[in-house]
């Protein structure tokens, strides 16, 4: 290498290293400690009918740490009022959404292309294995209301 370039190269490495470290995102990449609904679901706004997805009906709410990736998604007044906006899991994890909405609509998870009907009288449970990695938004389909995103990180 040209000797005249050596000093600028060293300076550039130092400056770039400092910039990269300073600009490092605050949150760690990959899933956080998996967040479940921390209290057992207290608000049961309506009696539940048998959920349309494959999961068994839930009669009583018990916080089960054996299946850690359980999320309650509650929609009220035109927006999501529960859970963080971004849910992070690892590829291969079991994921369970329990969706409650004050309007009749269709919950849709993009990418996985999973749909389930929700209504004020009927909450829904969506359970699936996070086989696809990436970032997938979920919405109330008819209202085109984007609720949040599921991020599935590779192993």
């Amino acid at each position, binding site marked *: *290498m*040209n000797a*005249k*370039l050596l000093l*600028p*190269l060293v300076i*550039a*490495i130092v400056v*770039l290293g400092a*910039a*990269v470290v300073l*600009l*490092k*995102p605050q*949150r760690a*990449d*990959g899933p956080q400690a998996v967040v479940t609904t921390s209290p057992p679901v207290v608000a049961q706004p309506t009696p539940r009918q048998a959920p349309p997805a494959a999961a068994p009906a839930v009669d009583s709410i018990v916080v089960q740490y054996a299946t850690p990736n359980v999320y309650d998604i509650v929609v009220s*007044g*035109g*927006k*999501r009022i529960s859970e963080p*906006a*971004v849910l992070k899991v690892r*590829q291969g994890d079991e994921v369970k959404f329990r969706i409650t909405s004050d309007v009749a609509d269709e919950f849709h998870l*993009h*990418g996985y*292309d999973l749909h389930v009907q929700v209504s004020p009288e009927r909450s829904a449970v969506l359970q699936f294995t996070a086989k*696809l*990695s*990436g*970032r*997938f*938004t979920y*919405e109330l389909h008819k*209202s*085109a*209301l*984007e*609720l*949040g*995103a599921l*991020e*599935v*990180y*590779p192993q």
Partner: protein
Amino acid sequence: MRRVLTFALTTLLLLLSGGVAACVMGAVYNLPIPFGMYASGSAAALVASFAIVAYVLRAQSAGSGIETAGTRDGAPQVRMPQWLVSNLAAAGVLGLLLAIATGVLGSVNPLANFGMTLFWIIFGLGVTYVTALIGDIYALMNPWRTLCEWLERFDSGLFRGLLRYPEWLGYYPALALYMAFIWIELFGQIHPRTLAAMLLIYTGLNLGAAWLLGKEAWFRYGEFFSVFFRLIGKLAPLEYTRASDPDRGYTVRARKPFIGLLETHADHVSLLLFVIFMLSSTAFDGAHMTLPWVGIFWRGIYPVLAAGMDQPYLFFLNIYYLWQWAMLLLSPLFYLVIYLSLLWLAKLLAHSDIPLRTLALRFAFTLIPIALVYNMTHYYGELFSQGAQIVRMISDPFNLGWDLFGTSRSFSNPIVLDAGTVWHTQVALILFGHVVSVYLAHVEALKVFPQRRHATLSQLPMLALMVLLTTIGLWILSLPIDAGQMVAPASA
């Protein structure tokens, strides 16, 4: 006048009352790249830059020089068959008509609508990337130009132009249309019907402008897609030249890849701004829904405003949207300042008398490879997930249950690329674009600052520029993304 204002205000408020859609199509985004990849990608860019600079300087001092001129005179040129040119032109018009028709009559679901996928994904993304490989085929397929030429069969002087195209206007119309296009893409909440309406309006605009200012001038300076694809086409190893004879023949010649970016330079400040906007608009698209960016408003600006103004949440939400729009329009300034500052430094270190404006125009095209890979890294996933759906949709473009080509069940599940693959591809693409831009910038710098004494020093600011742009690009890809909850509460 009052009616026009009322209409404009109503439209604006209607647009504001919706959510901020991150993108017109597709809700499958990329994960932020891990910090390790971002850091090592930046380091690789830095090392590659120095290696290229060393190579270029050694080649110059050895006297071998770098071939910068295209092989225009000696290169083989092939005349394109007229039937091919005519069919390509007709295909362009057919695509436009189909997009409009399916926008009006097809599925109302944007993700299931043929016209939406055709325009935003196949045309907006697919044709862009294909152009980088095989050249500016849009010049042959431009439906609006073709319509002008078909109309000229009835009146040959129809698009000769009423007024002479003013030189000061430059490429500003194309830049303005580019900004409008990106605004619509990011904030417009376009549905199939509105896409059809936009395409009709754009058709009217092009025909009117071509009539007023002349077809040649308008499609050279004013029509957004013509300018855009002509720039991207300079990367490709194929160049299409229109023959001067009246039957509209085309010749195609081969050249070295990327050399097209050195053969010509930007001829107007507005074209430099256009290239800068290519960079900044994609950077903005990548950054504007990330947590740090959104936090600038909600943690920085909103508390100050809320303290001073007693207004409902919806009021601040509308200000937030206006802030995002303003930032998009001002985004070129950020990159322009970086670009001009480092060019000025290069000029200083090289003791050059060349005006900064001239230098800025000469180096403008060297930014295009980075702008293109910025675009590819953000959007190429959509080409797979949504673009593949066109195979299914083409059998049933109007969503009536047809199966014209037997593909109506193909790709019924969207293709989702593995996140690890996406990350590696993104970093590789950015590095590739970086290497090309660095090489071109240094070859250009040697032509512009030929004094051997200052050759090394003058290379460093250009190197810093490219490393900075690449690091910013990688950094944006690594930012955590917000999940779009900025939706106004349902209004009464």
